[in-house]
């Protein structure tokens, strides 16, 4: 699964996710990627999220929109909300994986609960960073 989240100079956020699914998956199986609120979500009032991991668990816990809900209703920061969903809601329910997320201030967080997540980030200052493991 691949994905991107961004915040532009107008403070608008967006998310995009694309996947081939799991190796040897059952034909017709669809995971969280195309399900808005599970693997992909964006709302300027909170954040944009793209997920990767065990799709069925991301769906059951509506992982992407849950991060936004924590920000909206509990006043959590992007980092705290995403960490809770990835490290508790997903990790404690057999949902390995992670997310990338950005808020309308341009803050980025990229938590994951598995060995690694191929990921990268860049901000307006032009600092490009890519990572595979922690």
């Amino acid at each position, binding site marked *: *699964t*691949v*994905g*991107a*989240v*961004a*915040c*532009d*100079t*107008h*403070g*608008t956020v*967006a*998310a*995009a*996710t*694309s*996947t*081939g*699914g*799991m*190796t*040897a*998956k*059952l*034909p*017709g199986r*669809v*995971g969280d*990627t*195309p*399900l*808005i609120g599970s*693997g992909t*979500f*964006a709302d*300027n009032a909170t954040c*944009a999220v*793209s997920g*990767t991991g*065990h799709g069925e668990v991301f769906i059951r816990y509506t992982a992407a929109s849950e991060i936004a809900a924590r920000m909206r209703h509990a006043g959590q920061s992007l980092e705290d909300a995403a960490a809770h969903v990835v490290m508790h809601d997903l990790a404690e329910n057999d949902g*390995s*994986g992670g997310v*990338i997320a950005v808020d*309308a201030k341009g803050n*980025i967080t*990229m938590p994951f609960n*598995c*060995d690694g*997540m*191929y*990921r*990268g*980030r*860049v*901000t*307006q200052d*032009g600092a490009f960073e*890519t990572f*595979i493991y922690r």
Partner: protein
Amino acid sequence: MKRFSLAVHGGAGTILKANLTPELETGYHAGLRAALDAGHAILAAGGSALDAVTAAVCALEDEPLFNAGRGAVFTSDGKQEMDAAVMDGATRAAGAVGGIFGPRNPIRAARAVMEHTDHVMLIGPNALNVAHAADLPFAEPDYFFTQARWDALQSTLEMRSEGCEDDDPARRHG
């Protein structure tokens, strides 16, 4: 004016840590950087977040190392099925496609659903019809095939035929 930012992730199907060679690792870093470059160029020019994430994901879909578009994994039937979604935080406009095969960049098909229909998700022939109507480029199966993904399918099917249970969560990742 606010400060822009961009993040990407690029999963690679069933890749186990022990199989990650230095060459592959270099390739993954380069692929991620190419996606960041694509999105960054748009944002730095004052473009929209929606265009930036679309461009970044297209770059990842074009890179056979990643499990999306070209280089997508195979189903148990030896076929490829692709899913994609895009969402705009300013309007909550969203588009998604499920189980499609043919468009070179499934994320553009998802965006076509968002921009050219009243719907959020389309599957099957009508998803492809929307992509055709939007003049999106299509490709033949050879374009999407990669030997590494085919070998991963054979390995997984062989393991299943031998009744082996595999608890490695990496195998449940896209």
